[in-house]
């Protein structure tokens, strides 16, 4: 009984279990990576299945708490004859996590961030983050058979969900979202230093990490350096 008590909540286990199905995983990936909300037709087309099958699995993902759905009329028409509103899907705001054995790094992270804030140790944290980023970048560059990996895929592997936007990369996901919400100055500055370190460690001279905050995405962006002859690999 004691071990059972420490299992993650059923809700989280069920949500993660849903993604064992490759089709659901593909649908979740498509919706999570989309710029805005996704209709059933769009999702079906993206993963190459029939609309009804996509709808069935999308709704399973909503039931499991991984996606959220809303209804909206897509066309211009209003009133009678406008047709039923379309069901649209987006990634759910909540977080799903399961750790075995139980680990609660979240609690530790909040306490540590609070301590940095109280102690006024912002600059020390930024220095540590830059070092950690640089070491990780160097390691990745050293492991690569050819040239060092580009910053885009490296940030992708770290969960930032980068996408190309104008003169650089923006990051759709903040990997530290709940922590950054509570301690924005401490955590976003740490995050920026980490990305700066990664660029240094990778030997990437073409990108420049900048603070570019906006609601709903990571506060850090990687701008292409102007004037440089180097070409970004992304």
């Amino acid at each position, binding site marked *: 009984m004691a071990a059972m008590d420490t299992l993650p909540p059923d809700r989280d286990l069920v949500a993660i279990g849903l993604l064992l199905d490759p089709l659901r995983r593909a649908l979740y990936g498509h919706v999570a990576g989309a710029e805005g909300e996704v209709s059933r037709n769009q999702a079906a087309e993206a993963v190459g299945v029939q609309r009804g099958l996509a709808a069935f699995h999308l709704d399973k993902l909503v039931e499991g708490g991984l996606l959220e759905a809303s209804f909206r009329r897509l066309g211009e028409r209003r009133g009678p004859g406008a047709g039923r509103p379309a069901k649209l899907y987006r990634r759910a705001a909540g977080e799903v996590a399961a750790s075995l054995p139980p680990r609660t790094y979240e609690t530790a992270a909040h306490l540590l961030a609070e301590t940095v804030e109280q*102690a*006024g140790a912002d*600059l020390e944290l930024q220095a540590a983050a830059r070092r950690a980023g640089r070491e990780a970048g160097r390691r990745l560059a050293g492991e690569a058979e050819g040239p060092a990996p580009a910053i885009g895929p490296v940030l992708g592997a770290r969960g930032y969900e980068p996408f190309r936007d104008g003169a650089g990369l923006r990051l759709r996901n903040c990997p530290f979202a709940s922590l950054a919400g509570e301690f924005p*100055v401490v955590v976003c*500055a740490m995050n920026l230093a980490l990305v700066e370190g990664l660029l240094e460690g990778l030997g990437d001279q073409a990108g420049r990490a900048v603070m570019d*905050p906006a609601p709903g995405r990571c*506060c850090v962006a990687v701008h292409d350096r102007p004037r440089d002859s180097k070409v970004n690999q992304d």
Partner: protein
Amino acid sequence: MAAHHLAQVNIATLRYPLDTPELAGFVAQLEPINALADAHPGFVWRLQTEDGDATAIRPFGDERIMVNLSVWSSLEALRGFVYATRHLDVMRHRRRWFQRMADPYLALWWVPAGTIPTVAQAGDRLDLLASRGPTADAFTFRAPFPEPADAAR
């Protein structure tokens, strides 16, 4: 129009005088960041002298302590400016310029729309927060209180 506006005070203790090279980075950001605040949705008012900022005002009996006092239409408007604009990029350097403060350095409270808080009132709100912790009379971003219900509405 909302019946109340949100007042915000924060104080900062300079590590060096404003006219030293150590503070040059901060001084250079004053004008653009103040302009950004003035143009931000929900900005209502900020304390300033004829220089266009409040850096000359040192009201707390310590020449090193500067004050920043402003009024916003809502908590979301203020939060949006502080944490989701270029203002955040300036804040990450705060420890180069300002000492860490043991007492609360920021207090928020609701004022009737159309009224402007005084520096003395702002000082009282900081004291209140220090002595009682977050209450409806003086609170923080992390422990906010909703706009008071207004009987007239």
